[in-house]
């Protein structure tokens, strides 16, 4: 294994940790807003790290571009949909969690 292999393993593991934390948050957080918060962390940072890890193994710049495009699209869709869900929840009168 070369240096870039080790680095990409590192990035993939870090991304997996973010996904794990996001999933735990999704399951354990008290209300819809905090759950969305946990979910977007997994999507944005976790997927970003995984994309970086995979891009190091990519054979051509075209596939690096595709990977980055996937990340950007997930960012766009994830943030828009989180906004829509949160807005709908507010409209329906879902209370925010207070300690």
């Amino acid at each position, binding site marked *: 294994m070369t240096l870039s292999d080790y680095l990409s393993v590192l990035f993939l593991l870090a991304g997996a940790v973010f996904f794990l934390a996001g999933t735990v948050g999704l399951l354990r957080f008290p209300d819809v807003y905090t759950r969305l918060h946990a979910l977007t962390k997994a999507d944005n940072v976790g997927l970003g790290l995984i994309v970086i890890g995979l891009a190091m193994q990519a054979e051509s710049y075209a596939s690096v571009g595709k990977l980055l495009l996937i990340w950007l699209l997930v960012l766009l*869709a994830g943030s*828009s949909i989180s*906004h829509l869900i949160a807005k709908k929840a507010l409209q329906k009168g879902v209370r925010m969690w207070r300690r």
Partner: protein
Amino acid sequence: MEALSLLQWLIDGLIGIGLLWLAWRALFCPELFKAIVLFIAFGLLMTLAWVRLKAPDVALAEVAIGAGLTGALLLSSWAKLRDFDANKGMGVREKNRVQSEQKTKRPFFHWLSATPVLLMAVGLGYGVLQLSPYATGLSTAVAENLDASGVSNPVTAVLLNFRAYDTLLEIAVLLLALIGIWSLEIRPSVREATLDPVLDLLARLLTPLLLLVSAYLLWVGAHASGGAFQAGSVLGAAGVLLILAGWRLPLSLAGLPLRITLVVGLSTFIAVAVLMMLDRGQLLAFPPSQASLIIFVLETTATLSIAAILAALFLGSRPDHSEKI
């Protein structure tokens, strides 16, 4: 090597158990809304299974149609059903609705139906275990004739050349489903599309990109995974997104131009079939030298029609009638 195959077994086992568990939850979850969301998750996991089974073409179709469009259709029907109840005033009793969603046959009937299903599962499982572990099927026949098909992706070759009549009839089925829905004369959904600036922006950003992706899938289908169905469903998804963002087909286009787009795929297919019949005496038997061009024409028109039909299926009511009511 040993560790890798153990890891593979672990992944496949997890996917298999996950699929069965998600299906169980999607089918027997008390809340219908949750059941639909679980079904969408099931479709996404199914996509992973297709990738593991080395069928990327199917994975693309599943993620766009099986998980994406079916999910959107189910959710929108669920919302319409809830609106019906709310309009009639009988569904105000939320409890009532939840009860009807959970209603099953009598417990006696559960046992009565579980027994033959279990027997069937055992029988089918036994049948699968009896099959020989190796079977080449038709893959050698396809590989031998791939050069004459005009494309180098074997799945596209099967879909649009060797078994092109499947695809012809499939587009006919799509069109029939749409005609059926239109003839039911369902009231268009009364709810106003929520005009949301974020959704609007998302639709504006994604629509050109989805157009590009669709064109790419159409082009790449000749030699890698992709093709008319995947391209058509991505294009149809763009239409669904636009409908959700509040866009409606202008009335000037909702009449004849829409209908031409809906049938162009099927009519081109039929025209080509008839031409081949006259020329070579066989339905949809393309001359190898022209096959590439014919497949390209068929795929392009099929993509347009599939996209228009899928978006129209999602809309449900006739676009040119919605204004009158």
